[in-house]
C-alpha cells in the first residue's frame, strides 16, 4: 500500500472511530456506575440523527437557515437536548424501577427498550431512508482528501470527549460520578445523591450519542432509518469493551482503534467482506485474553 493510501485510510478510520468513541463513552459511563449495558443507547444515537434530519428537511418558519454555521450549531444542540431528555426518560421509566432487580432483568429490559424505540421511529417517521440535504466541499491535504464535514465532525467529537474528561476529573459532579462508580453504597453513606448522579450520567451519555447521530447525519450524509443506530451501537459496545468497560479514555481509545482497524480491513480486497466479523472477533479475543480491556484494570472482586 502506498503511503498516501495508508494515510487516507487512517483518516477514514479515525473519523468513523470518533463516532464509535462518542457512543462508546455512553456505554462505558453507564456500565461504570450501574454495572449494566444500556442496549437502547444505539437508538438514542438514531434519534439524534432523526432530529438533525427533521431540522434540515423543512423550513421551521425560517428561524435560522440550517445551512449556516449558527443554524448547524443550534441543530446539533437541539439534538443533544432531545436525546438528553430521552436518556433521562429511559432511565426513569425503564431502569429505575428495576434498580434492585437482578442484572439479567435489566439487560432484557434494555433490549426491549431498544426495540421499542426502533419501532416508535418506524411508526412515526416510516422506513424510507432519510438524508440531510447538505453536501460538503473537499479539502486536499497532501495526497489526502478530507471533506469539510469530516473535519468538523472530527474536531467536534474530540472536543466533546476532552470536555467530558474535564467534567469527570475536575468538577463536583464528576467526583460524585467517580465515587458512585467506585462503590455506590459507600458513596450514598457519604451523602452523594446517587440517584441524581445516575440520571446525570444517562443525560450526558445520551447527549453525546445524540451529537454523534446528528453529526453523522449532517456531516457524513448517512441515510437515517429506524435501524440506523443498531450497528454503530454494537460497534461502540465492542469499542467500550476493547478499551476496558467502565473506563472513559479506554472507550475513546477503543473506538478510534476499532475505526482504524475497520478502515484497513475494509480497504483490503481479500478481507473487505469480513469487516464486521473482525469487530466481533476482536470482542471475543479481548474477552478471552484481556477481559479488563486495554486500559481497564483488573479489579479484585471482594467476596
Amino acid at each position, binding site marked *: 500500500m502506498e503511503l498516501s*493510501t495508508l494515510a*487516507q485510510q487512517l483518516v477514514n478510520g479515525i473519523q468513523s472511530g470518533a463516532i464509535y468513541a462518542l457512543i462508546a463513552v455512553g456505554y462505558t459511563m453507564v456500565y461504570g456506575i450501574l454495572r449494566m449495558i444500556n442496549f437502547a443507547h444505539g437508538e438514542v444515537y438514531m434519534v439524534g440523527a432523526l432530529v438533525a434530519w427533521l431540522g434540515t428537511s423543512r423550513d421551521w418558519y425560517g428561524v435560522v437557515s440550517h445551512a449556516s454555521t449558527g443554524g448547524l450549531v443550534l441543530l446539533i444542540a437541539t439534538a443533544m437536548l432531545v436525546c438528553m431528555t430521552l436518556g433521562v426518560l429511559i432511565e426513569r421509566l425503564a431502569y429505575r424501577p428495576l434498580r434492585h432487580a437482578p442484572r439479567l432483568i435489566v439487560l432484557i429490559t434494555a433490549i426491549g427498550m431498544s426495540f421499542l424505540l426502533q419501532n416508535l421511529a418506524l411508526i412515526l417517521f416510516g422506513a424510507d431512508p432519510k438524508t440531510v440535504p447538505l453536501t460538503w466541499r473537499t479539502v486536499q491535504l497532501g495526497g489526502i482528501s478530507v471533506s469539510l464535514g469530516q473535519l468538523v465532525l472530527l474536531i467536534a467529537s474530540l472536543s466533546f470527549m476532552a470536555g467530558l474528561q474535564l467534567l469527570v476529573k475536575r468538577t463536583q459532579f464528576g467526583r460524585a460520578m467517580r465515587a458512585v462508580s467506585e462503590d455506590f453504597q459507600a458513596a450514598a453513606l457519604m451523602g452523594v445523591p446517587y440517584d441524581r448522579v445516575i440520571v446525570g450520567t444517562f443525560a450526558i451519555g445520551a447527549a453525546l450519542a445524540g451529537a454523534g447521530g446528528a453529526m453523522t447525519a449532517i456531516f457524513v450524509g*448517512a441515510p437515517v432509518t429506524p435501524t440506523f443506530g443498531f450497528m454503530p451501537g454494537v460497534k461502540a459496545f465492542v469499542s467500550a469493551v476493547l478499551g476496558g468497560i467502565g473506563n472513559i479514555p479506554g472507550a475513546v481509545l477503543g473506538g478510534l482503534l476499532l475505526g482504524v482497524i475497520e478502515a484497513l480491513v475494509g*480497504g483490503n*480486497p481479500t478481507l473487505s467482506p469480513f469487516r464486521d466479523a473482525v469487530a466481533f472477533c476482536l470482542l471475543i479475543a479481548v474477552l478471552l485474553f484481556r477481559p479488563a480491556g486495554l486500559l481497564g484494570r483488573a479489579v479484585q472482586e471482594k467476596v
Partner: protein
Amino acid sequence: MTWRKWLLWLMAMAIIVMLSACTSRPGGSAGGTGTAGSSGMVNPAARLAKRNAAKVVQPAPEPDQNRIVIGVYADLTGDNSTFGEETRNGVTLAVEEANRAGGVLGKPVVARFEDTRSDPQQARNVVTKLIQQERVLAVIGEVASTMSLAGGPICQKYGVPMISPSSTNPAVTDQGNYIFRVCFIDPFQGYVMAKFLAENLKVKRVAILYDNSSDYSKGLAEFFQQSFRKMGGEITDVLSYKPQDTDFRSQLTTIRAKNPEAIYIPGYYKSVGLIARQARELGIKVPLAGGDGWSSPKLVEGAGGPGKAIEGCYFSDHYAPDDPAPQIQEFVKKYRQRFGQTPGGLAALAYDAARVLFAAIEKAGKLDRAAIRDAIANTRNFPGVTGVITINEFGDADKSAVVLQVKGNRFVFVTRITPETATTAASARQVK
C-alpha cells in the same frame, strides 16, 4: 466471584451474536445455493434439471372459489421500502383495473400484502401465512433476489404459482416449476452494463464495489466481471460492503489508488447514494454504474440531491418512463393520476406481473393452481408495459434492458440493449 463476571460477559456475547445474526441476513446461508448457482457459471442444463426436479410436497389449502385472492410479499418497511411501495402500487393498479373491467373470470380480485422488511426469515413466515391462512390462489413477489430465494421454495412446496416481478438472480426460478418471473436475469443485466461501458463509454478499466449480503449484488458483480473481461476490459479491484455500513471511504480509497475509469456498484439505492457522495468527497470523478437496484426515487436524494454526487451516472433498468411508446406513456399517466409519482421500473414490472397472472387465470378458466401454473408457463407475446413478455423454459422472461442516466431528479433513457441471441438462456451461455 469472578465466575459471575464471566457469566455476565457470556450472556452479553450471546446477545450480541443473536442480534448480529438478525442483521447479517441468514439468507446468506439459505441463499448459499443461490450464490453457488450465481457465481461462476450458469449452466442451462443444470438450471433446467434443478427447476424440474423440485416437486410439490404438500398441496396448499383450497383457494376461495368466490373471489380471486392473490398474495403479495414485498419490503414495505425495511431498507428497500421504496421497492415494496412501488410493487404494491403496481399490483394495486392492475387489481383495480381488473375489477373495474368486471373482475377475472367474472370474479372480484383481492390482493393481500405482506411485509418482509428485507429479512429472509420474515419472507418465509409471510409467504407461509399467505398460503396457509389467506389461502391465496397465487403469489407475487419479491423484488430482492435474496427474499425470493427465501419465499420461492415455500410456494413450490405447496404448489402455489409465484411470479417474481423483479428478482433478477438466475437461481430464483431454478427453485421449481411453480416459480416464474417477468423480468430478465442478471447474466444479461451484467452483460448490458459491461457492453455499455466498453462500447458506448469506451472504458477499459473498471473497479467493482458490491453488497456482500445480497445474492443479487454478488451475482451481478460476478456476471458483470465475466462479461467485461470477455470484452477485453480489466477489473482493477473487487471490494464489498454491507448495507448497514456508513463508511465506504476505506473501500473507495483502495479503488482510487488504481485510478479506474468507472466504478460498477451493483447494490441497492440506499447505500449507493452514500457511496457516490463519499467517492466524490475522495476526489473520484469517474462515472459510477449499477443495476436495477438503483431504480428508486430516493437514489438522488441519498446522494446529496439533484446535480450532486450521482449526476450523470448510469444504471441498467427494465423500462424508461420517458420512452414515448404508447403503452408506456399510458401506464405512466394512469400511475401518476393514482399515486402522484412517476413509476419506476419496479412499479411497471409489478403491474406486468399481476396482469400476466390475471391473463393466465383467464386462460386456465378455473381457480386451479396447477392449471394456472401451466397457463403462466405458456405465456407467449404478452404485451406488457416493460416489453413483450414470453416465458421461456426456465420460467424467465426474454426481454431487452435499457440504460438510464441520472439527470437532476430524473432517470433519462440513453440506450436499449437487446439479448444478442433469442433467449436469455443463450445469453447466459455466452457469458459463461
